[in-house]
């Protein structure tokens, strides 16, 4: 097993600043002390092998809780900090965690004695992430300590993260991409500035300059925001690395940012990954990007990619143990055996660079966040007691409804309140009858690509 970035041994060996926020910062040595003392709290409560719900905010307390759980063998499900109460309750009823961390500091912890597990969770289970954090999907990804550490090390290797780096992480830590920024930098002894800011916030560029940030990371929409706010004309001497993942960035933008990086002596990494592979699967080496626009690149160190029946298949030590859909599933061992059928259709060119050509799985990505179409459909049907058909492709959700008068039924409002989906992403189509296939199933192909 490679180095465990949360361990006493590792954190103790590092110097300098670990985590920075708008309000405070903490050194590696202090972080290690705080994690140790919080680990003690968890151990005194005798919680080893139990399940915890952990809302992840962009602050130091969340990082301490997360690292202490890993050390104390408490298995946390990382939740989006803005997850709606009703979605949180659904998850709570389904998984009945023994521990609920609140969001009001380190002492905000609730232990439900009746939910303590008689049999502790399997030893190799370390962490749970939702396949679609924003819909509070009950479908979870089960990750091991080895998954976390090997992926962090591989990322650190191909991004060449050194101890002097300072990453600006504006992605949520409950999201595998955001978490991977944290993990890989802790693994390298580098610093991470945690923040909820976007390039549309007035302070964003001041932080970039003032804090001498050396790397930024974001989903495709983040790069559209940077472009729109004049990023390419700004002088940012300390910035060395930009990474992009969480969906396909348009070729036009890749070209612009690639040219910008080349002329400014910076590196722009286009990457691909899935929560099912802890985070990262492949990347395009920046010096090849100009010739490989549209590609998801080559596998990360330690992994391999192949095409099987047109489907992209990844193998590596960062492939999850398996999914969980109900509590009992948490006790299943390693189902995947390091092999992941990605659900993405792909091809490979003569240089070994991979390309995604389509998707088998039923989900859509909106501004980088993944939404299960079946969950949205079920949510709508439940709320409005009517039949819906939810289809879509990247950046657009198409909802076929038989309800008369979409506006008065509040479909947009429901999607905003329940799932934080902005109406810009949503197109509601009124139909007399939902399209059906010959064997009586909803026919999603009608709206595909529209």
């Amino acid at each position, binding site marked *: 097993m490679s180095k465990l970035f949360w361990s006493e041994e590792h954190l103790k060996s590092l110097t300098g600043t670990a985590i920075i926020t708008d309000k405070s910062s903490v050194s590696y040595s202090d972080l290690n002390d705080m994690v140790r003392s919080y680990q003690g709290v968890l151990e005194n409560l005798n919680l080893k092998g139990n399940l915890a719900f952990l809302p992840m905010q962009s602050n130091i307390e969340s990082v301490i809780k997360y690292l202490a759980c890993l050390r104390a063998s408490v298995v946390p499900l990382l939740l989006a900090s803005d997850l709606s109460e009703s979605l949180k309750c659904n998850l709570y009823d389904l998984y009945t965690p023994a521990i609920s961390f609140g969001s009001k500091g380190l002492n905000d912890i609730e232990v439900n004695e009746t939910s303590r597990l008689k049999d502790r969770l399997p030893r190799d289970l370390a962490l749970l992430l939702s396949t679609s954090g924003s819909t509070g999907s009950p479908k979870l990804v089960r990750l091991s300590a080895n998954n976390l550490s090997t992926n962090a090390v591989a990322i650190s290797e191909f991004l060449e993260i050194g101890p002097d780096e300072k990453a600006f992480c504006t992605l949520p830590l409950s999201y595998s991409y955001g978490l991977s920024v944290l993990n890989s930098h802790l693994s390298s002894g580098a610093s991470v500035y945690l923040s909820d800011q976007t390039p549309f916030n007035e302070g*964003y560029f001041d932080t970039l300059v003032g804090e001498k940030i050396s790397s930024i990371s974001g989903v495709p929409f983040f790069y559209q925001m940077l472009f729109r706010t004049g990023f390419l004309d700004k002088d940012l001497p300390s910035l060395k690395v930009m990474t992009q993942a969480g969906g396909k960035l348009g070729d036009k933008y890749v070209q612009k940012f690639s040219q910008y990086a080349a002329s400014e002596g910076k590196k722009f990494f286009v990457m691909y990954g899935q929560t099912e592979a802890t985070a990262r699967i492949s990347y395009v080496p920046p010096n090849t990007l100009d010739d490989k626009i549209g590609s998801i690149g080559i596998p990360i160190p330690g992994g391999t990619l192949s095409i099987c029946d047109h489907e992209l298949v990844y193998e590596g030590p960062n492939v999850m143990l398996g999914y969980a859909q109900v509590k009992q599933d948490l006790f299943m061992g390693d189902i995947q055996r390091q092999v992941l059928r990605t659900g993405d259709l792909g091809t490979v060119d003569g240089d070994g660079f991979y390309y995604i050509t389509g998707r088998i799985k039923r989900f859509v990505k909106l501004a980088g966040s993944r939404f299960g179409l079946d969950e949205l459909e079920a949510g709508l049907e439940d709320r409005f007691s009517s039949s819906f058909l939810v289809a879509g492709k990247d950046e657009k959700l198409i909802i076929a409804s038989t309800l008369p008068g979409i506006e008065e039924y509040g479909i947009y409002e429901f999607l905003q309140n329940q799932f934080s989906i902005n109406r*810009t992403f949503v197109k509601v189509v009124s139909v007399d009858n939902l399209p059906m296939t010959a064997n009586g199933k909803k026919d999603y192909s009608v709206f595909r690509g529209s």
Partner: protein
Amino acid sequence: MMEERVRGVFMECLGVTRDVVTDQLEYGSIPQWDSVAHMSLIVGLEDEFDIMIETDDVIDLSSFEMAKEIVNKYLQEINE
């Protein structure tokens, strides 16, 4: 007149009712006005008034009041 047109774009892009769009309404102050809505707001205002909003103004346009001021600035430039 201009104010009503700006308000209309806000209502459309944020998916909110008229009473929500006051001078005090700021970026991030309601869940509907997130970064995604902000992008569509910028495009919406450009389309509505046939203007090109410059990069600095994209960030400065952080309240309904500022939106009116910025749109007004562009409209005056056109008239000059």
